[in-house]
């Protein structure tokens, strides 16, 4: 679930027409910046947040909270700039002790154990989800009916 196929590139531009999400708290509409039409992370961030166009994103301009701002401001100079993008951040927290609580990996359930139940929203189209009540799918409802293959993942 991590790779873009070349044949899908042409469809990217259509994605945000239906998938653009107006429910964010940001003043600037997400429809203004299509992440799939920006080439770099800095280009996306600058378009999205650098409202005064000075190539620096201040805490006042950045609307997604202090924790994320701090992670992006990698040189800790109080602003997010293009230079921060080349300062890594990858791999942080992956090695080293995990006994500090935050970032500690949960233990996966084991074969033979009862599958933890969940009830989650089924993804529809943006239009459908906006108009209709969300359909919920509960794992335990499949008991006695058919086995279930669960594929956990994300776009990145």
């Amino acid at each position, binding site marked *: 679930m*991590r790779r*873009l196929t070349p044949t899908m590139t042409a469809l990217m531009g259509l994605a945000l027409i239906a998938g653009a999400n107006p429910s964010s708290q940001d003043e600037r509409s997400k429809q203004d910046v299509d992440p*799939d039409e920006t080439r770099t992370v800095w280009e996306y961030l600058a378009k999205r947040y650098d409202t005064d166009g000075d190539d620096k994103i201040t805490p006042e301009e950045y609307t997604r909270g202090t924790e994320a701002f701090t992670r*992006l401001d990698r040189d800790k100079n109080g602003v997010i700039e293009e230079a921060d993008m080349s300062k890594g951040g990858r791999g942080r927290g992956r090695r080293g002790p995990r006994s500090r609580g935050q970032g500690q*990996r*949960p233990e996966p359930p084991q074969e*033979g154990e009862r599958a933890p139940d969940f009830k989650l929203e089924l993804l529809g189209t*943006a239009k459908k989800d906006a108009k209709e009540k969300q359909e919920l799918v509960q794992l335990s409802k499949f008991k006695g009916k058919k086995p279930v293959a669960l594929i956990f*993942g994300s776009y990145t």
Partner: protein
Amino acid sequence: MKELHATYGEKVEFLVVYITEAHALDGRSPKGGADGSPIVEEPVTLEERKAIARRCDIAIGLAPMRILIDDMKNTAGTAYAGHPDRLYLVDKAGRISYAGGRGPFGFSPDELEDAIRLDLKLTPIERKAKKGTRRK
């Protein structure tokens, strides 16, 4: 995965559980843009997560597998240690008959298929042994 769904989808329910991002640009292990990976901010609302899941669906083509969206407490992802990606098979009795390793190295569609064929009492597929151990 789509091939597995095409082969076994009538007898097995395939559910994609969309969880927290593995490499959001504002996350702990950021990627995006110049390296070819998608530019994604970690969603802070369910609607944002759904919008990203739709981008993913269009880019990768998950349909006709159904996509479930984990809640913003990451309930399912945590219960199954699904981050960054992982496969499971739950049998008809509601028990875990296959628990895959942690992705990316432990993410094995072949192992899932073997588990499905075992569950459906189909002849096992002969595969060449792979080097390395399954990461749990």
